[in-house]
């Protein structure tokens, strides 16, 4: 089963969206003509077996509909198999008394730098920004991730099951993201979410123009020209490769990793994840996407998203925002804590993300802050909406909405049992299941990951 899921993952990855993909194998009888035809850095993640789990009598926020009171949830073989009121425990099942407790999908963070900006915060392990060129679409975050980052167990203890690790925002185009499951691992391949599409990190505004001030771009118009130049090159590259793949005549075109990533965006296989604060700049980026025929899956930070929530709803672009970060630079000066609620009101897809090793541990609290800021301002937002901000909507932003992010029969058993309403400041994640496997148990030190870095250190570990 585990092997099978890993193989399936590689297959899915290759066959995204039914388009010719760089990693799609060639004709069965032919040896790969180019390295591009071989499997690229496949996931070796394997679901860990666990006995069936029945959680009884809990309040369940499914993120797919109204909340359920006194309800039960059954997990088997890594999946949600039933949700209802009178479920029987299969033989050998772990039965959890959910009285007074809340159950939610595992939290998904669209914007993390765990592993690429690892604790203890040294330059030696600061591998998040390849700030050597404004366009580095060729770098992949997974090649920087350190699986022993001691921040990983802390995030798990906060109920987080899946994250997107992004390169930093120094560059116009910073590279590919990695979507990983938060499980103990020796290699990043063991964490890679099988079949997840890559994201492409792009960044607007102050960061790139500050970092490249002396060589350019040094202005926002320079930023725009930089993206356009890159995608013009990518169009040509894509056409060359598509032609060659269709005909298989002559030598394959020369591989260019930078353009391969950008061509992936043009083919719709790679999802654009765009750091962008200001409303007017987001509107420019939507136009850029129109020019080259792709869509931006999610803006990130999007401190001014509320000003153009209608445009985002129209474009079908999500906004991954903080609850209340603001004012630390000019492009964040107009932040309001009702950002998520205003997006929700306008019918746009709101997401609460962390971009922070502290915030990732309490995304439920950040969502609570955003929810109540909205309610107190008279905006029509509910707990059912807010749970989607940290589960179903981020799953969509990563292209995983068919697999995870909600509690429905057939979905992955990514589940958190909370001591109380997760939107209470006092709530603690008590049990965390990652694809059905109990990755965290607040009462059992054996179920509290300590990374190699934690060993022999004064750090007390998680659960505290």
């Amino acid at each position, binding site marked *: 089963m585990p092997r099978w899921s890993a193989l399936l993952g590689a297959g899915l990855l290759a066959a995204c969206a039914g388009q010719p993909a760089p990693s799609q194998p060639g004709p069965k009888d032919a040896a790969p003509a180019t390295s591009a035809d071989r499997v690229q850095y496949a996931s070796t993640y394997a679901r860990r077996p666990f006995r069936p789990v029945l959680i009884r009598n809990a309040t369940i926020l499914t993120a797919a509909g109204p909340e359920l009171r006194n309800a039960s949830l059954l997990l088997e073989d890594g999946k949600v198999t039933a949700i209802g009121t009178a479920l029987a425990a299969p033989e050998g099942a772990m039965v959890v008394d959910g009285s007074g407790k809340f159950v939610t999908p595992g939290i998904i963070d669209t914007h993390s730098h765990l592993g690429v900006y690892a*604790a*203890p*915060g*040294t330059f030696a392990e600061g591998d998040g920004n390849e700030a050597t060129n404004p366009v580095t679409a060729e770098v992949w975050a997974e090649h920087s991730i350190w699986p022993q980052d*001691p*921040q990983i167990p*802390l995030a798990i203890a906060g109920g987080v099951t899946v994250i997107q690790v992004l390169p930093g925002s120094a560059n116009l185009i910073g590279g590919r993201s990695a979507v990983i499951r938060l499980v103990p691992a020796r290699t990043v391949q063991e964490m890679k979410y099988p079949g997840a599409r890559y994201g492409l990190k792009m960044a607007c505004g*102050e960061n790139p123009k500050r970092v490249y001030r002396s060589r350019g771009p040094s202005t926002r118009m320079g930023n725009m020209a930089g993206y356009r130049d890159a995608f013009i090159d990518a169009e040509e590259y894509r056409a060359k490769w598509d032609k060659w793949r269709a005909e298989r005549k002559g030598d394959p075109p020369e591989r260019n990793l930078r353009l391969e990533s950008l061509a992936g965006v043009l083919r719709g296989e790679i999802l654009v994840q765009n750091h962008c604060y200001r409303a007017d700049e987001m509107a420019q980026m939507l136009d850029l996407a129109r020019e080259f025929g792709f869509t931006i899956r999610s803006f990130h930070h999007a401190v001014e998203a*509320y*000003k*153009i*929530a*209608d445009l985002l709803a129209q474009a079908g672009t999500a906004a991954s925002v*903080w*609850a*209340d*970060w*603001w*004012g*630390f*630079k*000019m492009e964040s*000066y*107009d*932040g*309001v*804590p*009702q950002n998520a609620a*205003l997006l929700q009101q*306008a019918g746009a897809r709101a997401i609460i993300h962390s971009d*922070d*090793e*502290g915030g990732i*541990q*309490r995304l439920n*609290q950040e969502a*609570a*802050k955003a*929810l*109540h800021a909205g*309610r*107190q*301002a008279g905006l029509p937002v509910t707990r059912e909406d807010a749970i989607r901000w940290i589960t179903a909507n981020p799953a969509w932003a990563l292209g995983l909405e068919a697999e995870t992010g909600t509690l429905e029969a057939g979905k992955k058993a990514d589940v958190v049992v909370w001591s109380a309403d997760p*939107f*209470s*400041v*006092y*709530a*603690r994640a008590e049990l965390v299941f990652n694809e059905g496997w109990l990755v965290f148990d607040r009462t059992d030190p054996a179920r509290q990951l300590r990374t190699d*870095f*934690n060993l022999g*250190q*004064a*750090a*007390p570990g998680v659960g*505290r």
Partner: protein
Amino acid sequence: MNRIRRISALAAAAALAALPAGAQTIAITGGTVHPVSGGPLENATVLIRDGRIVAVGREVAIPADARRVDARGKVVTPGLIHPASNLGLLEVSSIEATDETDVAGDVTPSFDVSAGINPDNVRIPVARLEGVTSTVVLPGGGFVAGQAAWIGLLGDRREDVIRRAGVALLANLGAAAKGAGGGARARGLARLERLLDDAAEYDRRRADFRRNAIQPLSAPAEELEALLPVLRGERPLYVVANSERDIRNALHLAAERRLRLVLLGAAEGWKVAGELARAGVPVVVNPFQNVPGFDNLGARWDNPALLAEAGVTVVLTESESGGPRNLRWGAGHAVRNGLPWARALEAVTLAPARAFGAGHEAGSLEPGKLADVVVWSGDPFEYATRAELVLIGGREVPAMSRQTELLERYRRLPPQ
């Protein structure tokens, strides 16, 4: 320099004495009142006149001319005191033109932040709308960075907001001490010891100093002068120390010279909790801190709880990117991780007031104190709770900030 500092301190003291009179008498009635100086009172009244609290209790006579605030079903607490912010000193951290926290040099004890305070700073209304009514504002970076001020968060002029300048002298025994020591914190610590010794020498031998009949001292006179209140125990030395090692160094330094010490950070304070309790040192901790760095490998979320359990005076702070508005949720987070609720409330009210010598002026609901009062819709630490009425020095905080104006402009799209 020194003279200017004294004048500004005097001005601040005068401002404190003549705090803006609340134009009216206010009676907050029927609420669950947490005076902090004592246990909670159900269905009690807080009576305020001329900017001060005049009575708290269940049997308070309400003057006929009083504005009545019905707080039935609500919670009434002292205003929260943020012990370590830069409100009023810094507007946009990436924009140097808006930053008055930092000066060049690593030993600048004479640097008094108070003249840099801007009462119109747009971050102030955002913080006070969540119940933060006053704050200790800190100088930035250096090794011996300068003097903190205590400010109220409502007022048109600087004199209206500065409650007291020079409430603490900030020093840093962590990474900054390492830098100041030329690479090793032991040398940084020795440098601080020498500074304090030189200040004492300067004070003893002022005449020799003027005649140049004294060995060279390690800092100019104005800097040594600024250390004297610390040496006399009049002004706390507010020391950034996170590792057990740095905390012990600070404790030792303060004990030897009988200094008043307040610690800031103390991520590994839980390891030294017994000693901190015995020394009676208030400890300002960030309840959100648990990510290990080499200066704080033992950081943990239950640090405030463990410190309190050992009898340490805990003060809570935060350094969230959403700003000081997060203080009350930090307190809630500390409760989530084991700090008793009443201790958490004390840790954001009376404990910081006392730590910075303002225990007689603020931090609790007691007759005679400044009327910094918040009426909450429920538990002040909960996200679902709203600060419904915030009084600072008896004046009502307007329900407005730059953020509320942006919200109203964009509530409906496109904006009108």
